């Protein structure tokens, strides 16, 4: 009776929201034994509380419910993964992160629906891993399993020997999600004149012509795992076409009075690959991609829309090492813009490193971790120490910090005011 009352209260609360009906159905489903008997249900509930160092304000008060509904058969399977984020006390954000059907055949599988697709061998950097866009509304801080956005796609995997060919057709465009005004992660550039935004060209309508296609060949062998990929895609970050607006002053001089900024996505062709192999206690990893047709912001006065089109190479090499309970990992990442000129609003070589040290103690119930991004161009960094203690197999507490240091021109240093300490309390079921 009490449970029923609680469910009714929850439903009443939720249905006040626009997307409430879907959530209510999900919550009801979890209370139906007949469904639960046939469908595997697991997930977690998590409290995430963050506090900024510089002013003591809570920048994160988040409660999350993540539920996986899975059913697997010999020839068909499905998965639905709704996530419910509650910010503060009444701001609900519902996301159906994945919902797809799997069809299994002798030599190939098909997956249709909204899905997250992960490619490549690098950790924490996205080079050939471009099928699923990123939710960057909280910069790079969310766990990497939560930072990717599900995409509507049909995926076919064909298997032969130790090889796989994967073909993905993405008919509905989904781009990276960025923080908006009001967010502590929103850092607009300094405009020389007041900007006006025209978003009329930003949307990409779902159509056959606007589809994206991705192809990958991969091999797992005793000596090495590698893959080769190609993509006909959209740039997941819109290019900002800038039109300068002038007026004549009292002495007939032309004066810059405004900027008309039109965000627009452009097509990209990407080719690349990745590999991983082991040498004694070391794991060696590499990943590279050539991007053809990327638009970069430029100060060249002759450039149309303040943009110039260039190709660039993005690659990473990494090394993992483990001894006892200690795991170490390092990666060097470089982005090289070809046919570079000094007008381009980005470095010719963008160099970054990552480091990871992890130590498991007390029979793998206490985990100490230090992960950091280091921007080599500007000497800035994001340093992420954390300690996790597993009170039981299903209940853990994490205490961590995100520390931004260095030059404010760097992609990490610019968030110097956002350094924070946080806790995550998680119950898995």
């Amino acid at each position: 009776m009490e449970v029923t009352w609680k469910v009714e209260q929850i439903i009443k609360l939720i249905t006040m929201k626009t997307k409430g009906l879907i959530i209510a159905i999900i919550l009801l489903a979890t209370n139906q034994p007949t469904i639960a008997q046939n469908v595997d249900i697991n997930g977690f509930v998590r409290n995430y509380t963050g506090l900024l160092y510089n002013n003591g304000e809570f920048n994160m008060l988040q409660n999350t419910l993540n539920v996986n509904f899975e059913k697997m058969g010999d020839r068909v399977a499905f998965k639905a993964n709704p996530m419910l984020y509650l910010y503060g006390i009444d701001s609900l954000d519902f996301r159906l992160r994945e919902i797809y059907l799997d069809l299994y055949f002798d030599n190939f599988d098909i997956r249709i629906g909204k899905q997250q697709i992960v490619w490549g061998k690098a950790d924490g950097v996205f080079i050939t891993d471009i099928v699923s866009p990123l939710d960057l509304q909280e910069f790079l801080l969310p766990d990497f399993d939560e930072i990717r956005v599900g995409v509507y796609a049909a995926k076919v995997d064909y298997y032969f020997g130790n090889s796989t060919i994967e073909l993905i057709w993405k008919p509905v465009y989904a781009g990276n999600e960025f923080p908006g005004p009001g967010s502590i992660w929103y850092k607009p550039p300094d405009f020389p004149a007041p900007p006006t935004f025209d978003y009329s060209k930003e949307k990409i309508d779902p159509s056959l012509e606007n589809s994206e296609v991705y192809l990958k060949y991969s091999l797992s062998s005793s000596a090495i795992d590698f893959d080769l990929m190609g993509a006909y895609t959209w740039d997941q970050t819109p290019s900002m076409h800038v039109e300068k607006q002038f007026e004549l002053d009292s002495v007939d001089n032309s004066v810059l009075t405004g900027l008309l900024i039109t965000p627009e996505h452009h097509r990209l062709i990407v080719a690349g690959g990745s590999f991983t192999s082991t040498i004694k206690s070391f794991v060696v990893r590499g990943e590279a991609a050539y991007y053809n047709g990327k638009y970069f912001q430029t100060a060249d006065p002759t450039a149309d829309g303040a943009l110039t089109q260039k190709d660039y190479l993005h690659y990473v090499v990494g090394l993992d090492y483990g001894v006892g309970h200690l795991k170490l990992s390092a990666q060097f990442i470089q982005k090289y813009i070809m046919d570079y000129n000094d007008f381009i609003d980005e470095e010719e070589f963008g160099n970054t490193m990552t480091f990871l040290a992890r130590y498991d103690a007390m029979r793998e119930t206490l985990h100490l971790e230090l992960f950091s991004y280091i921007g080599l161009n500007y000497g800035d960094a994001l340093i992420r120490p954390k300690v996790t203690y597993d009170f039981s197999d299903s209940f853990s507490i994490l205490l961590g910090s995100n520390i931004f240091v260095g030059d404010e021109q760097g992609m990490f240093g610019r968030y110097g005011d956002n350094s924070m300490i946080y806790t995550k309390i998680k119950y898995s079921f």
Partner: protein
Amino acid sequence: MKTLKITTVLVAIIIATGFASQLMAQELTGREIVDKVYNLPTGEDQTSDLTMTLINKSGQERIRKIKQFTKDLGDVEKSIMFFQSPADVKNTSFMNWTYDDESKSDDQWIYLPALKKTKRISSDSKSDYFMGSDFTYDDLGDRKLDDDTHKLMGEETIDGVDYYMIESTPQDEEYMYSKTKTWIRKDNFIGLKKKFYDEDEELLKILKIKKFEEISGFIVITSSEMENVQKNHRTTMILNNVEINTNIPTSKFSERMMMRGM
């Protein structure tokens, strides 16, 4: 996470043979006895459910459940494990390929469902403990015959059963154990107890076999316990639903299956 061949594992430490009576008549060296133990038949393939219980000094328990498949393909043995509990590792899978060629390291991959990523991992750290248990990967069967020098120390009769007493000393002086002592039954080559000594030659752990069964003509250890006597915690391993020679398809041991699950 490293390789695990739980069934072959404990078998490797202890096992039985039908040729025991013939062997008894011969004068065997320590190496020959252990060689017999390491190379006894275990079937072409095997499926089982493993329940591993970690018990701390206060008696609190943490339970891990794993479904595992193993297949011998001649020059390579492949195994794949699917973690069923606890909840935060559910659907994680682990695959291992072990080669007969002793100069070749194992190949190992782990699939992390939250990250949707299969990662190749190094198999070199055999002294790591498996999932926070009291078993290292070496304890679970990764150890090679000539990694140690095996010496027959004598014979002993306990409760009317005759045992060989074998002392094994590692070739690598830096190894985590200074020596081990194993009690192997003379009548059927089942070892019922093994003691592990740390680098200071102090007793560190004791392995006891609680139960073994004959399944499809093969002896399988279905219940065992490893106790760390220095830290006063222990781990039990119980195998259920053991099936041998069911002709598991080779395609089961692939990244495709790691990602798909059982």
